[in-house]
């Protein structure tokens, strides 16, 4: 299957076929999830309506992590098999992941102000997310830091791989350093510690966010591929122009 998808045109054909179903699923889940989350689910007896930030905060945090795993896998594929599509995918994922990491930090701060009385506290999870955000920025800076864009691909892929090894170490070290945050509430042994009236919208929002992520990444990959082909065409004006696949 990997060999089949390694061809950029075939990859994009497959991805394009997925696009419409993804948009449908994403918008339906987001609509229902937001409605349930903002209007139907009860306010927390301690946290009040503030708790509704969870429907943005948690999906954003998941996607920030998910995006980093994606970057690491792309890096692995790029280094080991030299698939150009892996480079394109990594460049498509990185800014999206960065935005979600930033969103996590902002919603975390908004949530923290009424809960802890401060916009920012140095607790383990916020701090690891901040460092993850810096990783993303480093990846973006490195992949675009060379005069020829393709020169950045290999170092950036290596950085993503190093990050994959290092992120768990950073996470562990920051936990070791300090922990004040409430324990993970969704996935833990003995079932979720969250009422089903809140679980339902949260799960819907998670699905919506993941499909949204996939849509944006596919659209960005399409744009990046088209950009590369356009550049290749400009360099070879006499060659037979090939169709820019969209």
């Amino acid at each position, binding site marked *: 299957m990997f060999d089949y998808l*390694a*061809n950029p045109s075939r990859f994009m054909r497959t991805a394009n076929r997925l696009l419409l179903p993804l948009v449908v699923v994403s918008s339906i889940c987001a609509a229902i999830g937001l409605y349930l989350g903002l209007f139907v689910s009860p306010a927390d007896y301690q946290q009040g309506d503030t708790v509704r930030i969870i429907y943005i905060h948690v999906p954003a945090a998941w996607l920030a992590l998910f995006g980093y795993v994606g970057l690491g896998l792309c890096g692995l594929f790029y280094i080991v*098999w*030299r*698939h*150009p*599509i892996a480079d394109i995918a990594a460049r498509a994922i990185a800014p999206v992941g960065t935005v979600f990491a930033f969103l996590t930090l902002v919603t975390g701060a908004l949530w923290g102000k009424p809960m802890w009385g401060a916009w920012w506290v140095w607790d383990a999870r916020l701090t690891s997310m901040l460092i993850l955000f810096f990783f993303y920025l480093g990846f973006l800076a490195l992949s675009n830091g060379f005069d*020829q864009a*393709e020169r950045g691909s290999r170092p950036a892929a290596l950085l993503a791989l190093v990050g994959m090894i290092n992120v768990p170490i950073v996470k562990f070290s920051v936990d070791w350093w300090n922990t004040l945050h409430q324990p993970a509430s969704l996935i833990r042994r003995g079932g979720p510690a969250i009422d089903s009236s809140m679980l339902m919208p949260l799960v819907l929002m998670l699905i919506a966010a993941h499909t949204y992520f996939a849509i944006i990444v596919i659209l960005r990959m399409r744009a990046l591929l088209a950009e*590369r082909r356009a*550049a*290749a065409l400009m*360099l070879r004006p*006499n060659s037979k122009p090939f169709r820019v696949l969209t």
Partner: protein
Amino acid sequence: MMNETQINARNTHAKKWSPVIGLRIRDLCVLRGMRLVINGLSHQQQPGDIYCLTGPNGAGKSTLLRTIANRLPVARGQISCAVPVVYIGHDDGLSGSISGRQNLTGWAKINGFAYQAAAIDQALDSFATNRFADISIQRLSRGQRRRLALARLKLAPANSLWLLDEPNASLDQATNALLDAAVIAHADSGGMVLAATHFDFAIAASPQIITLPERPE
């Protein structure tokens, strides 16, 4: 995108089992950025052969030499070479802070060639560099540095392949003669030379010429 030939091309330098005696290049394509700089080049060279690589600026002479020296990735095709490769590129590969003798000794050591004082002296002698071999490189002229870089050639084994990129660009007449003599002696003892140059090179040995075409752009 990865196919069999590409994998082969990447490993050729590691594999010694190939039946090649000298240098063999088959249908080589090299990309630089998105430009196809070398398109389907084939070349074969036996021990004792001297080849001269000519062509207009931008034809891919340096690219070809750097690819054979394993410093640029092969996009398609195959390079097989069964002997040690010595590459003298545009840059001399000498550190400015230490002397020529120290540079040469270090180079011989990392390559596993003879690095005893006698061997180094002999190499330095062959390009008449003894007078300035113990001064730090940054105080030498361009031509003097070039001579020290070329002195490395004498440290390599007799059967090695010399890849020379514009070796005589900043040399004076006398040193040019020394270089020609060294090249001819190397070929006579079974070595190979592939040089990219715009100038007369080892005329006495009447080297074979490869002309790279100008790239259509």
